């Protein structure tokens, strides 16, 4: 046996991890640093060099991109929209929990129903965007048709949710909540299956009402699932891109824009790579709070 067991382990471990770490460093770790650097430059995406702003032009601050960002109205609209997403997208978790509680039934038919509820989770967001775009279509969509049938909308009105300055984001969040609630439902159903029977049976014997049981026993016992749901939901709200790009392109007039899409537009449509990098860094910084919280939780699970 060559070397001690610890040495052997160490050699094998780094050997096994080498290809993964190489790819990961190349495509994930270094890019983070590179983007942060770029946010202090004015790179146009083509030149081979990208000096920091304060070097290229001494009259300008190194952090000029961030200063411009601070003065950029669209940035603040996007930030506000991400905040709205954080709040309202989270409601889909409650829908998922409700559906899980409702369908926590053991039968073949129930399983069939559950499968259909899960289905939106596997659709590409392009599909979700297309389906919901059509569903909410102002002139011919099903929602508009039903609203007119129910006389909620007059015959000359139009249900232009996605074309409305104030409500476009709401339409987007509803569409996004559809697959996400399905995902939360899966997590909560798994959590419910793991609940300890004896506690629940003891509570039933004690004569606790169903509602009380749900509120005071089941929900607290679902805490592990809830932690995951909260983190994934908040990360999802912060990095939302696909649906906004597909359904409204941030419009009308940037009213539904979000940081992720704005970054893409500034970078690839306006060729302001440095500015886009700055937006990305802001998005990263906001997400960092959640990432660190999750890492802490993971590390605790390891025992430090």
């Amino acid at each position, binding site marked *: *046996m060559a070397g001690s067991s*610890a040495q052997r*382990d*160490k050699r094998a*471990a*780094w050997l*096994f*991890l080498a290809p*993964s*770490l190489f790819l990961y460093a190349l*495509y*994930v770790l*270094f*890019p*983070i640093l*590179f*983007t942060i650097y*770029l946010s202090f430059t004015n790179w146009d995406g083509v030149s*081979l060099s990208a000096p920091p702003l304060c070097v290229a032009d001494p009259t300008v601050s190194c952090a000029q991109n961030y200063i411009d960002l601070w003065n950029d109205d669209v940035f603040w609209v996007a930030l506000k929209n991400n905040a709205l997403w954080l709040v309202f997208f989270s409601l889909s978790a409650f829908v998922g929990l409700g*559906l899980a509680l*409702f369908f926590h*039934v*053991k039968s073949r*038919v129930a399983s069939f129903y559950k*499968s*259909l*509820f899960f*289905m939106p989770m*596997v659709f*590409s967001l*392009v*599909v979700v965007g*297309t*389906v919901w775009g*059509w*569903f909410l*279509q102002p002139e011919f*969509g*099903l929602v508009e048709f039903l609203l007119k049938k129910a006389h909620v909308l007059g015959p000359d009105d139009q249900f232009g949710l996605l074309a409305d300055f104030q409500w476009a984001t709401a339409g987007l969040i509803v569409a996004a909540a*559809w697959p996400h609630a399905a995902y939360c439902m899966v997590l909560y159903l798994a959590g419910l299956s793991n*609940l300890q*029977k004896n506690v629940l049976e003891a509570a039933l014997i004690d004569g606790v009402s169903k509602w009380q049981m749900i509120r005071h026993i089941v929900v607290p016992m679902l805490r592990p*699932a809830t932690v*995951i749901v909260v*983190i994934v939901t908040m990360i999802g709200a*912060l990095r939302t*891109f*696909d649906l906004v*790009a*597909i359904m409204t392109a941030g419009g009308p007039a940037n009213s539904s824009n979000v*940081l992720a899409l704005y970054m*893409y537009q500034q970078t*690839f449509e306006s060729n302001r790579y440095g500015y886009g990098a700055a*937006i*990305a860094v802001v998005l*990263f910084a906001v997400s960092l709070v959640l*990432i660190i919280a*999750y890492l802490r939780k*993971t590390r605790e699970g*390891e025992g430090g």
Partner: protein
Amino acid sequence: MEAKSRGPLYWILATLLLLAWISPILASLLTSVKTLDELNQGRYWTWPERLAWENYTTAFIQSGFSRYFVNSLVVTLPAVAGILALSSLGGYALAKLRFRGSTAVLLTFVGGMLLPFQILLIPVFYLSNNVLHTYDTRLGLMLFHTAFQLGFATFFMRNFIRALPDGIIEAARIDGCSELRIYRTVVLPLLRPALAALATLLFTWIWNDFLWALILLQTDTLKPITSGLQNLKGQWIASYHLQSAGAMIAAIPPVLLFALLQKHFIRGLTMGSGK
């Protein structure tokens, strides 16, 4: 403690909920089998005169959809294979081998899976363009997905492998097997359920990706189904029957996979959430 049976009121409510839930899909399905004439006459939400299945063939064949389909396969399948191989190796190292830096490596992988993609966008674009010269190739897109998903995948495999009993591994070590041999002959056969679960998740996520296909692929004939469909909607503007048919076609592979492998999928989602 699930209920074993419910009354008829429950099932009525359940059915209503279900119909409301899938109504967007039903709407698209209905529109996808209507003829253009019918739509032009404004008869959107009536039962179709006849089922216009030719919309599907039009969408699939005439617009190059089939090419997008192949592209999706070319990108997704090798990526999934690569990720499974690398993440199970790496997961084994993190789970069963003791070495300094093990926790740091683990946290690196875990942190990466929560990143907003925008922080990677420009450098990966630059990497593909100027360094690796993989820009506008399906290989480039495949490489990115392989690298990025390693975060979650390694974490996932590591959690699973940790739960495997140490005894058999120790026995093999005492027998003098190399770690690689132990991994191949002792551990790998036990990984089948985890690999199946992970594979279904990865396939779905990579197949459904839109942003990176948008960034890393320019030529239309190389695009996968996601950006391809989005492109076609521009061509099919106001042709709602074709748009709906296209969306349904794009939805089929993950739905099929899900229908066949639902258990693995669910297990993957609930296991992968970490302990």
